[in-house]
């Protein structure tokens, strides 16, 4: 085998390895998975947070995002695939640290799909909020679930800028319960175009799995 043929062979092999590596990394790079914990009320518990920007060590530290949180030990995990059992009540507590963006469709300012058709906003039973004061929406379209999340006041004295945040910082606490369906993968998403710096707020974290959207892995 002459030198030229050998060079072609080596280059081809290296190209194949690089392409394979790229595809492999692409297919295996996905947001982490969190398992909902058992709830003393029956069913499972999910503690979530929405923040104006991800942690400073995140690949996108300026992107708005959801987090899974444990308020006791301040363990914040950037995971947007949540494992929950089928046909079970899921109790959600959501700490909302972001400011208001406003809904494009005010219809989504009414809660739907929760147990009782309401949610608790800072301990107060609520059905609808001001669409212009909405920061985000937690929605699972397949379940008809829509929960509008009130934005933190623009005059808040102690806002949180990047995850992780603390409960001493300004936030809204939203709790609600919904029932899961059959086993499968179910999408959840935000309906507020909240991607700062992108045209009409639709790019970046709104179009990338792992920030303002993700999946429920119903098992």
């Amino acid at each position: 085998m002459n030198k030229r043929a050998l060079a072609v062979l080596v280059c081809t092999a290296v190209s194949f390895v690089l392409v394979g590596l790229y595809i492999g990394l692409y297919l295996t790079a996905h947001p982490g998975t969190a398992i909902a914990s058992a709830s003393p009320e029956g069913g499972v518990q999910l503690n979530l947070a929405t923040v104006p920007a991800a942690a400073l060590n995140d690949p996108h530290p300026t992107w708005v995002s959801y987090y899974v949180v444990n308020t006791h030990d301040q363990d914040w995990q950037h995971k947007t695939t949540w494992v929950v059992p089928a046909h079970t009540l899921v109790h959600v507590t959501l700490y909302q640290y972001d400011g208001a963006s406003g809904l494009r469709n005010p219809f989504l300012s009414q809660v739907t799909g929760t147990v009782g058709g309401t949610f608790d906003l800072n301990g107060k039973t609520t059905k609808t909020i001001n669409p212009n004061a909405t920061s985000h929406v937690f929605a699972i379209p397949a379940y008809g679930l829509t929960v509008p999340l009130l934005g933190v006041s623009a005059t808040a004295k102690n806002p949180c800028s990047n995850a992780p945040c603390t409960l001493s910082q300004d936030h809204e606490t939203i709790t609600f319960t919904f029932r899961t369906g059959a086993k499968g993968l179910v999408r959840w998403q935000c309906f507020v175009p909240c991607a700062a710096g992108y045209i009409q707020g639709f790019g970046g974290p709104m179009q990338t799995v792992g920030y303002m959207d993700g999946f429920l892995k119903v098992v």
Partner: protein
Amino acid sequence: MQDTTPYFRRLVLIWLVSSVVLTALVVFVLAPGLPPGNATVQSSAAVVDNTVLFGISTPIALAVLLCLGYCLVVFRERPGSDTTLEGPAVRGNSSIQLWWLVITTTTVLFLAVFGSIELLKDGAGGGQGPNPLSVPAGHAIQVQVIAQQWEFTYRYPGYGGVETNSLEIPANSLIEFHVTSLDVIHSFWAYQLGVKADANPGEDNIAYVNTKAPLNFEVHCAELCGVYHGYMYNSGKVVPKAEFASWIAQQQKTFAPVSGNLPKYSRSYFPAPDRRGG
């Protein structure tokens, strides 16, 4: 020695017989069962259109395929043959050229006229823009389809402008869909109804459907609209009129809390955007 075998006549005979048999099978057996089915007047018309197109294209496709197959078999190089034979050169044939022009022109013109008539008859379930050319006769129930990343919601201007997250329409009724979008370009595609209309931001795209009997149908977005385009689907129902009246009354009650937050009904919306966008 000149080969006097009547190849062309044989080929035409084979084509004629097979065309009659296969076209009959396609028109009477295959085509009537094809989507979108017969759930609405528009979807039935689509089945008729597809049947006509299949009926015309079957003999044409057969002519091409049979000619190819016939040549491959009859004019193949046989074992033992050491020369490649070619037929006499074709120098033109006015008769064949004339027939070719007449048949193809007639076919194309027929399809153009037939297609135009079908489109103008009742809109064919397609989006006709804000000023439809073809408006079916009768009183229409208006339903506004509002697309947004990544969900459809529906408004009923004839019922106080109530907005819902599910679609129900009455049976045996004329429905006037007003399709619009709040963000990017989507497409409202309820194929069992025979409806497909683009949802453009700031535009009102009108499509008509005459429903028949009750049924469940699917709604999909048919325009690539972002990361969750593939998840942008839900289901709808055609229900008896009494059931629809009861359902819409329930929707008005359920969504009464949010009714004060909704903008006044409009044929399109320009939501205040960009507070976060760049």
